[in-house]
């Protein structure tokens, strides 16, 4: 065995041992991630009081919650923690109800009112977004791919928690307002939509633009994807809950970029495929949100867009233009006039047909 092999074997062995020790620790440890989980672990069935008891004091929240998919889970024939309603997230309420009843009684009788004991019910006040999100992930990180990478996503990393976008109690719909006919704008962000069904605080894309304000300008440029018009939403292309792709992009047909879901004629494979199509991605040449340049290209002048790759780089990479491509002539300044199948061609190595 050579020294190199020995070194590799040692590294692999150490990794394997480390992983083994790590998993033994993990599997033997017992941790409650969230406060409600800790409360639930030590609770008995008698500690739960049911939603109606909560309604006595929290009627506004109860009424809003009643119309949500969360509340409907109580009617499901399948057994799940969500049947507990409020107490699924806030923990068993028996002690809280008793304590608050005594406080109210004392108040009514004019007696000294005991201090509020916040430890008797799980509250999310003063909790960090990640901690709050753990409560949601208890149910939502599970089946399906949508939320499975949330703990490694850009939003999680930046402390954008579930309740920054979703309202767990459901959103009341404000009064109707007139708004732009062709471009969604902030004042009309709350309306009946599929977004309200997933308890978003506002409809897409306004919800996203609230933080990502700079993309609004791109979506109002002359050439743009019709997002502010309401024909597309951010989550058509991005998975806000994270994922393995950079910029939280979605994939199409298993492994392709989200773009080809709609632009299926660019999917290929082509016999003569323009290499950046798959290797660099559509954004190598296009700005996907919007642009003042036609076809949402990165350059206003197609020649420059092409030349910046097709230039002589020590014989490496994209081929240079041939000598008869005289840039003094307009026809050679409009590359795609001849290279019409620029994304890829089945029958021509230079994308002429």
């Amino acid at each position, binding site marked *: 065995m050579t020294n190199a092999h020995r070194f590799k074997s040692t590294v692999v062995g150490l990794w394997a041992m480390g992983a083994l020790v790590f998993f033994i620790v993990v599997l033997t440890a017992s941790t409650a991630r969230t406060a409600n989980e800790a409360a639930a672990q030590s609770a008995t069935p008698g500690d739960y009081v049911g939603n109606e008891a909560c309604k006595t004091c929290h009627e506004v929240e109860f009424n809003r919650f009643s119309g949500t998919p969360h509340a409907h889970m109580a009617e499901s024939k399948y057994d799940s923690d969500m049947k507990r309603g409020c107490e699924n997230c806030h923990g068993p309420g028996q002690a809280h109800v008793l304590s608050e009843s005594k406080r109210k009684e004392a108040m009514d009788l004019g007696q000294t009112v005991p201090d509020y004991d916040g430890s008797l019910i799980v509250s999310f006040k003063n909790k960090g977004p990640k901690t709050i999100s753990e409560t949601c992930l208890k149910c939502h990180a599970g089946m399906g791919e949508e939320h499975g990478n949330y703990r490694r996503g850009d939003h999680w990393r930046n402390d954008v928690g579930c309740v920054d976008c979703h309202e767990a109690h459901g959103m009341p719909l404000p009064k109707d307002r007139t708004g732009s006919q062709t471009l969604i704008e902030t004042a009309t962000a709350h309306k009946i939509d599929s977004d309200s069904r997933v308890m978003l605080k506002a409809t897409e894309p306004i919800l996203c633009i609230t933080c990502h304000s700079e993309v609004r300008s791109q979506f109002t440029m002359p050439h743009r994807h019709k997002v502010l018009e309401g*024909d597309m939403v951010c989550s058509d292309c991005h998975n806000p809950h994270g994922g393995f792709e950079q910029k939280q992009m979605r994939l199409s047909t298993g492994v392709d970029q989200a773009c080809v879901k709609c632009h*299926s004629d660019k999917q290929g494979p082509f016999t003569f495929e323009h290499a950046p199509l798959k290797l660099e991605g559509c954004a190598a040449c296009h700005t996907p949100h919007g642009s003042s340049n036609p076809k949402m290209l990165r350059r206003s002048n197609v020649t420059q867009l092409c030349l910046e790759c097709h230039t002589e780089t020590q014989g490496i990479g994209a081929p240079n233009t041939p000598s008869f491509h005289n840039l003094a002539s307009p026809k050679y300044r409009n590359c795609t006039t*001849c290279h019409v199948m620029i994304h890829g061609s089945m029958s*021509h190595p230079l994308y002429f047909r």
Partner: protein
Amino acid sequence: MGKKYLPVILVVLGLGTVAMDVRAQDPSDISPDTIGPYSVTSSIEVGVRGVKVEGDIDKYRSDLNYQPGFQFMDSSFLLEAGKDGGPLFDSLLVKVTGWDSDPNGYLRVSMDKLDVYRFDTTVRRFNYYNSLNTIALGQHVDETVNTIGDVNLVLMPQNPKFKINLDYAFNRKDGPTLSTYDFSRDEFPVFAPSRSRSDTFSAGFDAKLGWLDLSFLQGYRTFKDDAEFFITQPQAGNSGPIVLSFLNTFNRDAPQRGHVNFSRVNAHAFLNNMVDITGRVIYSNAKSESTLFESLSGGDFTGALIGLNQIAAFSESERPTWFADLGISVLATESLTISNTFRYNRFEINGTNDEVIQTIKTAPAASFTELEEFFSRMTRYRQFSNTLELDYMFHPRVSAHVGYRYTDRSNDLESLEFDPADPGEIEPEIETFDNRTNTFIFGLRAKPIKNFWTVYFDFERGEADNVFTRAANYDYTNARIRNIIYATDELTFNLSATFRNNDNPTRTDDVPSVDFGTSTESRMFSASADWVPNSKVALSTGYTYSRITSDSVVVFFFNFQKKQGVSEFYSRDQFAYINVNAQVHDRVGLFGSMRFHNDSGAGDRVPPGPETLIAGYPYRYVTPEVRLSIRLHDRIDFIAGYQYYDFEERFKNLGVVESARVQDYNAHLPYASLRFYFGRRE
């Protein structure tokens, strides 16, 4: 009204009519907010629009394409059953916007029945028009209708152990387009009507097996494109008499067929509330094949007459792809999380093209030539990527993360050309590119003042993959800071800045070596404010400045002389908007908005010589809109509005020819509509 979409529109109007009928039957017995077991919440707005365009109609249509006539404004219809549910569905939501005179159309139908199914379907239509003189000499015109649909059905959606997912998606693209045919040293505009279809079917399940969440998806997509290219009369090329070639007849059929099989397995576990593991494997195999037949007659650049030139080609291509991903997050303590994300990506593109070209020349001497060629292309790609990150919460209001990403990419491009007339030694050309990148990641999030000010900061410094454009990787630095200030419950500010530097350190082999790199700087500053002082007034305003400066050393030919020059691109876009909503009276609502873009592009910069290519797209785009809403009845609003679009290119020092190609326009779009409310108002 487009007959294709009449059923869609009738469905929505029908639903509205049902609601109205229910009320009409016996108002004393039936609550106006219910139909059977369902509560109704709906507003449907239908109206007409007028359009008057002055200036470049092609540019207007390429940007906006609104036509006069009927359209839906943002409309929705929601039926919701109470606690006991409904017979066929518990809730039904229909959303519709656009269609007919609107270049965009959107329809969404969502239904669900507790424990049984959840159904969502979306259909979108885009009337796409593109005819711009800034691309392909203004000869590539598209006027297509693109229809895109998704249907998704989840069975047993509330089942915590097992659910089934069934999906169908389709794309349709039809319509006339113009293209160009490159023949014998000239270019000929040709008709190229577009007709492509794709259909994607997928089925899978999500299951919970003990501590393991398992998902599986199997999908299949078919694609077909019946592209056709032809001319209807003898055609001179772009060069006119300078080049002798011409076409008398031209016809090409190039149908393409393709399909993709893809399988995805996704597993997730959260072990002991401490370790989050997600693994995913995807395999996809995409295949395409095409048979091309082309025939033409005319004359070539030498002046020879061509009685018949025929090309027959058969091409096929295959692309198997593997993705394997593994993400592990260890929630070591309540404050500390350690994550590692690994990706393996491998694919090949293997394509061949076998073609025969027969040419019969009739003058100056009759001749027949036949040329057979075989081409093969192979691309092999493999990438590893690993990202290690630590996230620490110092305080519920302060947290930070650091990370490191490493990628290793290998790429082979192989090409082979075989000409039977010259069957000498055949050696494929192979190019291999390997590169590795290292990236450092840092982020901070803080709430310096509780419930008032939140700061997000992201920073990445490292290298980006760069196989083709330059010899070395790009060095990049990205930084972003975002402040959200909740000044009061009614007033919110957002202040953001984004910085991106992308530099390529390549230098030539000359002695002394000179810069052969490229550099792109992108800056974006954005500020916005939302003020909602009460339920009657809302104001939203903002400003964004985007600045892009790019320069690349390029090599090209100018008057057949090789030049090493510089390609520069400039964008200096200022965007401002203001939207005001005001309920000026119980029955009268007013909306006003203004959107403004002003990009000075390259400004006054003038190329010092032919070696310098300078580009930018200076323009001004102003879009005011006003909208008046009058409540005629508790359930009917009358709405009248007006939009104006003013687009102006602002190139300086244009010559006579360029001035004639300026694409300015202004468009007046008045409209009027009625909005019907059923159930409570939104």
